[in-house]
């Protein structure tokens, strides 16, 4: 049935492969997409902490390339194009600002562009995390870590729902356009409360409805059962996962050290 479903959805061959593997009970992992959710969360944490603590422009570039490699090995190269384009546009914009060399403008805008540059690799890796983690695997993995059920279930729903929120916001905007409700920036400034009400109330009503439906669906599938949860696919940290995590952490640590080296270098240069 799963094979039929996946072919119907005409999804990419990768996803189909995964489904067939699941059906046959083979735990073959498909590139970086299928590493253990715990490993994924761990490396995301290490990576964003590193970028938060450091990041010269060169470091940002290297970490962007690093994340790009992860995307490549997860079969998501197409999805990374948007991020890389954004990065390139900001770099060009930054360059133009520096060419204009108006003091006040440079100070203000370069800080903004820098922050955006710095956040692109972080957001990209978080996107990878949120879009590749499968909710049932996350639940099993967290249960193995003996985290309280309240946190596990809410966190799993939260992960699943984050992309939906932005989707729903888009639907609401479309509906407002259809009904000729002004959505311009001016109106948002002039009538902040009205705008908030128009956007927020439908969003919340939709969300509450979805959460009720989700709860019904989950209860039907016996999520509140006392028995231990099973998973068709084995959830475990395999040797390649550990290898990948260690390599990634080593590279992150190296980048951190590398970043400090450049700082010292440039500081001595200014002293001279």
């Amino acid at each position, binding site marked *: 049935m799963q094979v039929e479903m996946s072919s119907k959805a005409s999804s990419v061959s990768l996803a189909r492969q995964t489904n067939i593997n699941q059906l046959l009970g083979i735990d073959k992992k498909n590139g970086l997409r299928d590493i253990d959710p715990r490993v994924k*969360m761990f490396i*995301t*944490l290490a990576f*964003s*902490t*590193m*970028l*938060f*603590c*450091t*990041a*010269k422009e060169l470091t940002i570039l290297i970490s962007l390339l690093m994340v790009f490699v992860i995307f490549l090995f997860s079969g998501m190269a197409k999805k990374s194009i948007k991020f890389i384009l954004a990065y390139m546009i900001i770099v060009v914009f930054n360059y133009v600002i520096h060419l204009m060399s108006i003091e006040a403008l*440079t*100070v*203000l805008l*370069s*800080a*903004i562009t*820098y922050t955006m540059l710095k956040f692109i690799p*972080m*957001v990209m890796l*978080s996107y990878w*995390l949120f879009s590749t983690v499968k909710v049932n695997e996350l639940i099993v993995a967290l249960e193995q870590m003996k985290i309280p*059920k*309240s*946190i596990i*279930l*809410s*966190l*799993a*729903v*939260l992960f*699943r*729902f*984050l992309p*939906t*929120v*932005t989707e729903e916001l888009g639907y609401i905007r479309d509906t407002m356009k259809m009904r000729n409700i002004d959505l311009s920036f001016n109106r948002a400034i002039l009538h*902040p*409360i009205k705008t*908030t*009400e128009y956007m*927020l*109330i439908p*969003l*919340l*009503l939709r*969300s*509450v409805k*979805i*959460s*009720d439906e*989700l*709860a019904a669906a*989950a*209860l039907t599938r016996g*999520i*509140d059962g006392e028995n231990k949860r099973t998973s068709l696919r084995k959830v475990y940290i395999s040797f390649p996962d550990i290898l990948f995590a260690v390599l990634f952490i080593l590279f992150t640590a190296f980048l951190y050290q590398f970043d400090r080296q450049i*700082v010292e270098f440039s*500081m001595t240069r200014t002293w001279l």
Partner: protein
Amino acid sequence: MNIQSSSKMQVKDFITLGVLNAVFTVLFILLTVVVGIFPVTGIFAPAIAAIPLGVIFILLMIKVAKKGTLLVSGVLQAVILFLLSGSWTFVVAIISATLLGELLVWGAYKDLHRITISYVVLICGYALGSFAPIVFFTESWRTASVANGYNASYVNAFTEILNGPILLGVLAVSALGALLGAVLGKKMLKKHFVKAGVISGD
């Protein structure tokens, strides 16, 4: 299935918490990114974000209204913000704020006054989490930021704007924003959610 006392959270409540906290966090991030473009408006980002977020917070507290609502929400928000930004101060500030808030609403989970106070505490936690490192570790923050490639005059502008007394002012403004948000939330609760049958009107 065993019938549990309604004071304990059920699966339905966990799912509601997950969904509404997702909405809360996404809107918080969107609003702070938009407001935080300039340093001067950036210090008021938590205060401004608090106004629309108040609606979500009040709905969440009234809809679930059980022990642990606030603490679980705090943990969820802290996890997402930490994964996105890697800032430890956020985690500490939000979790301690929600612990304090949990004590404040203890036993009276539908009391709107107490919910308002706990919301003020939470938003102050957000403000502290964002700005405390700048105020209390000014020098190390300054050198770190300049070393990280931020423009020196921008960093100086930030440290000049923000200092001890100003932080108190920022906290006061954030608290005011949270109060406004709670008032808006209560209004919306009566106007829409009770009418739509999302929550019971008692």
